[in-house]
């Protein structure tokens, strides 16, 4: 059982960068959210992973329209981050260990079915470093980053994100290493657009319900137009949830959600899936 953990979490930069801006009345909610994030860290650690594969949706840190891959996996010795200003993000610059030899085995296997790009250099933006800050705060677990194009249209089709998840799982099952898989992003949010700060609580509830019930048909049925209208630009990041769901092949058995921290500009979400 080389896939030992599968989960998802939010990655909005406000979670670390604006923690001091949470109003007095909401401090207990913030602290509960952080506590749940730490609970997730403990869950992961208890599965004794050898590496963490983080499937994220980056924001023009490494990838641009001069060469925009649908999927890309890191194959570097180490990764530096955050690429953003340390103070703005509330996370100090650091170097995170990779495992290029494991990356190479995974990539060679995955590319038999999914045409992913590979990258021997990668600077983590908040999409990866915010989750790592909570889930492996000592940065002592080797990380292998993955990106899905959720930013520059044409975006990666949802059903390809599902197939990618299935192939990831098949590939993890081939290697001896114990792997924790984390998807980051979503759910509804409108970062850096006129509706920034808005959260569509109902849409989040609907999607999260599909996710927790392993309803891949439901999760892959959204059009980009629909998602943008109802869930904002940030909603495109459901691709990372779909990949993790397809890889785990199981329903959720633990989760946390709150829309009560608007200064974080996202419905803060954490979930763990059963691995079947």
């Amino acid at each position, binding site marked *: 059982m080389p896939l030992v953990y599968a989960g998802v979490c939010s990655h909005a930069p406000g979670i670390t960068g604006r923690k001091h801006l949470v109003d007095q009345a909401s401090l207990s909610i913030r602290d509960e959210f952080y506590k749940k994030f730490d609970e997730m860290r403990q869950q992961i650690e208890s599965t004794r992973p050898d590496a963490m594969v983080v499937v994220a949706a980056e*924001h*023009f*840190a490494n990838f*641009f*329209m*001069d060469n925009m891959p649908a999927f890309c996996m890191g194959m570097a010795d180490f990764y530096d981050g955050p*690429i953003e200003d340390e103070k703005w993000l509330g996370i100090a610059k650091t170097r995170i260990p990779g495992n290029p030899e494991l990356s190479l085995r995974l990539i060679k296997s995955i590319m038999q079915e999914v045409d992913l790009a590979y990258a021997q250099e990668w600077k983590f933006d908040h999409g990866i470093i915010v989750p790592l800050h909570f889930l492996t705060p000592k940065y002592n677990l080797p990380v292998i980053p993955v990106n899905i194009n959720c*930013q*520059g*249209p044409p975006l990666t089709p949802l059903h390809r994100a599902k197939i990618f998840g299935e192939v990831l799982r098949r590939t993890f099952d081939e290697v001896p290493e114990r792997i924790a898989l984390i998807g980051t992003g979503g759910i509804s949010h409108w*970062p*850096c*657009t*006129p*509706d*920034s700060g*808005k959260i*569509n609580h109902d849409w989040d509830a609907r999607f999260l319900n599909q996710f927790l019930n392993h309803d891949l048909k439901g999760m892959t049925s959204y059009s*980009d*137009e629909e*998602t*943008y*209208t*109802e869930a*904002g*630009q940030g909603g495109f990041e459901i691709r990372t949830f779909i990949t993790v769901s397809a890889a785990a092949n199981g329903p959720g058995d633990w989760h946390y959600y709150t829309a009560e921290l608007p200064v974080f500009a996202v419905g803060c979400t954490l979930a763990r899936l059963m691995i079947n």
Partner: protein
Amino acid sequence: MSLYYVQKLIYQINRDENIRRRFDENFNDLLVDYELSDEEIHALKKPDIGLLYVLGVNGQLLMHYAPLFGIEWFDYLAAMKQGIEEHGPVRAGLYAMTGGGKSFAKENE
């Protein structure tokens, strides 16, 4: 198509130290390296954040560009809204593909 070069310029100013230095020292000289229309050059230099939004610049790029000119967060958000009012719906890029970039806050809340 030249939206690509508007975005490339902003991307490189955001991420490339050498380009950022050229932006600081001589923006006109830097602009020559990109394939830009007069409207785009005008929007970039002013800067007209609202027009850049309407031209299709992704917010993940634009939100890092505004502060270089001292534009604060809420002014940045307001500028995008005003851009839609002045110049009409978003013409290209992510927001044009998905509804013209209008605010959906009213409809949904």
